[in-house]
């Protein structure tokens, strides 16, 4: 099993992802700089981490999609390889058209960091056996309001690609309470705004994020 965490200039949850994958899930993990044009051979999982890629002074993720590594990530996904975009990583995946829709400014216009609850609404490689479970995960974003046109929303619902939905309260005004969606030819691409990698150790208040790690570990081993 091999995972990589892509480091864009301005990534800041790259360490969080490394810690969860390498030290908690015990997956061999390395950092890959955004200027690289290929992924290390044998890469099973690519994580696009949270942060403020290129400062996010423009739309979040709008510049990161032009980084050389993105072409390699796209190819990896098209071949069915696993890709996980967390927070800024989700924003980058939508900007790169690897996932539909867009993440826009929270309705209350502030950056917000707190624990929220999401319900698993669709199973896939990252959520195998988790349908209907409710997870406590932290959010930390200013642009997390999921938006898409009606047709896209209908498609996501019809194809059961809404992986996570906010329950109890919707922290950012996302349409259909969407917190994360699946994409890729085999649901092998997941983007979500909450940070499962920051909820993998009981010392941090919640270890619910580990369930995603166990699921993706099993999915990698099953291939």
């Amino acid at each position: 099993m091999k995972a990589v965490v892509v480091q864009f200039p301005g990534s800041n949850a790259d360490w969080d992802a490394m810690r969860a994958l390498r030290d908690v899930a015990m997956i061999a993990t390395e950092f890959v700089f955004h200027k690289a044009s290929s992924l290390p051979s044998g890469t099973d999982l690519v994580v696009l981490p949270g942060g403020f890629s290129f400062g996010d002074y423009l739309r979040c993720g709008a510049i990161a999609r032009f980084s050389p590594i993105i072409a390699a990530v796209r190819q990896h996904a098209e071949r069915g390889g696993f890709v996980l975009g967390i927070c800024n990583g989700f924003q980058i995946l939508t900007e790169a058209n690897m996932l539909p829709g867009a993440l826009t400014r929270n309705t209350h216009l502030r950056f917000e960091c707190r624990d929220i609850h999401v319900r698993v609404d669709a199973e896939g490689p990252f959520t195998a056996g988790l349908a209907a479970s409710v997870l406590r995960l932290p959010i930390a974003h200013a642009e997390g309001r999921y938006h898409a046109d009606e047709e896209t929303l209908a498609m996501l619902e019809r194809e059961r690609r809404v992986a996570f939905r906010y329950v109890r309260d919707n922290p950012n005004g996302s349409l259909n309470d969407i917190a994360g969606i699946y994409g890729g030819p085999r649901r092998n691409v997941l983007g979500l705004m909450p940070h499962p990698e920051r909820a993998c150790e009981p010392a941090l208040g919640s270890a619910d994020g580990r369930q995603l790690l166990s699921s993706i570990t099993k999915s990698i081993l099953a291939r």
Partner: protein
Amino acid sequence: MTEPTVDAALALEYGLSEEEFVRACEALGRTPNFTELGVFSVMWSEHCSYKSSRVHLSRLPTTGARVIQGPGENAGVVDIGDGWTAVFKMESHNHPSFIEPFQGAATGVGGILRDVFTMGARPVALMDSLRMGAPDHPKTRGLLTGVVAGISAYGNAMGVPTVAGDLQFDSAYNGNILVNAFALGIAKKDKLFFGRASGIGNPILYVGARTGRDGIHGATMASAEFDDESDAKRPTVQVGDPFMQKLLLEACLEIFAADVLEGVQDMGAAGLTSSTVEMAGRAGTGVELDLDCIPRRAKKLAPYEILLSESQERMVMVARAGMEERVLEICRKWDLDACVIGRVTDTGRWVIKATPGYDPLSGDPAPHESAKQVFVDIPVSVLTDDAPKYNRPIADEPRALSKYPLDIASIAYDPRADLLEILASPNVGSRAWIWRQYDHIVRVGTAVRPGAADAAVIRVFCDDSMNGTTPSPREKWLALKSDCNARFCELDPRAGAAMAVAESCRNLACVGAEAIGLTDCLNFGSPKRPEIMAQFAAAIDGMRDACEALGVAIVSGNVSLYNETETPEGSRAILPTPMIGAVGLIEKPADVLTMGFKRVGDLVAILGPHGPGAMGGSEWVWTKTREVKGTPPSIDLQAEARLQRALISLARRGLLASAHDCSEGGLAVALAECSIAGGLGALVRIEEITAGPQAMFGEDPTRVIVSFLPSQLQLIERALADAKVPMRLIGSVVSESLAIEGGPTWTIHEMASAHARALEAVVG
């Protein structure tokens, strides 16, 4: 630009007194030119030279077994064991934040982070200590909103969690808010870097953002009182770019790891001037710089402007000869500007050369060596050790307490209504509106989040690579808190400052941590007023008293004077505010305590001496009268030290379920906070509750509320008797409400909702 003629009158406009101008002329043996006048103006400013405070600062305890680097460097360094250190400092950005709250606060965070990573540390935590004007003052809402947004924007983008802080409101800050930012980083003991220009002939490099015209004379601005023209000072405020600084951080850590540097320093106040002068001063060397090659973003910059610009996100590095190419290579990887701008010399002089009129941005051809002229030539020591130092006049008494009589009996007291009113006070209630705007969990280390305990607890990773590539790095656990009850300092600066030190350390003890080092940010009015200097001198004495009693040292700090505003009624100074940032070490994660009650049936007790219920300067009095008056509490520092030691020992033995200190709002507010945080109440006996507000709302220090299993009572009693710490059992934990025997009852829900809406009145 045509240079004005330099004389005493011009010097005065640039902040130099007549005596200081004469002193500058004598030191040079001639009249300084205009560029040199600018250099004297910033280097001899209060902000850079500490000329009024140095004589007093020398009384602070700054050494100890754990202290690796005390004051005088970019940040203090303390040993946290196993070859690792905590590097930390607190700094003010008061004046810029009042003029432009978002950028002022953002660049305050940026500056303190640079101070920490300059030492070779990876920053892992931030705190913010804010003082705002009256909650209903027309400027307060915009200032608080802007400051919090600025801290959030910079800290979040840098990926450094803001984990704690504190906030108090008082009309004394109406015209002078305080924004004190604290940063802490982790470094290997044998991989620390210092701001020294060592090694004759070594190349000096400029790394980071290009130089513009922003912030010119920021240090001079920060060394003067505000007046009606303060809005016109906006151009002296710097503009921050956290993305640039994130690149700078990662590039610096990579350069440090490459082991090619002799010294490094960030360009903060007074920019290129102060950084290179201080580096030469510490190393006892000289410096020669060529301004022609400075990266710039504004056209037609004069040497004067380049030297005094406070453009952010810039560093000066001294590389070992021949190693400069490695530095430049790493900067290219991170798309950062970098170039060699000069050399270390053996002359002891600070020499600046440039080609007059040369502007690379206008496409001018590279100038010939012979066209360069010397714009500045000043002995380094004149700007550093030999800068003016003043022992300014001190009034006999800082303040006469009798000026502030307090008649408690004349104020209506209703224990039930008063508690709810104080819980909803902007000084006491929930700060969630603030800390939710901060990414307080990035770096997966925040074990105790804001609002859950008296101090934040972070897990830090001692990662040899400094960039996250060491598998399963060693973990250490630190606690952080900042404190200062400035009301007590106003009423009694010496006791107030001692209590600020004591409270910050007590807050660490309440999470099971032992204080290992302090930093300070001393915010006062004008040093030219003897009564302000009296406050300052007394506060230093109080800090020293408490540090000595508690066995802890001040390892870094910052002084911010001239926090005054000219008003039609005369000059208005802030409350004297010696802010303390405290860092503690936790032996093992199981020791960590939080404030919330944990189990129904646990016993509730107060540790510490039974005080008289001091009401002077209390939140109860402020809530009722909006005034700071009366005789403040006094503190027995030996009793404080015994309490803190005993509390840490009980935590390490795993005997306690919760701990929370009594501060603003006294015992009643502390019990309410334990109840709100734990979602459980308590049934308690408080004697003399009907006699007056003293028992409920008095603010005697040196008291901690703890809860524990009844089966632990004997062990706890024995330990406390041995430690000579009094304990009073007052009741036990129950569900749903806080109730006082024979007195009022409050539901958790009503207390929590009062607490939750505290900042609503301010931020809307």
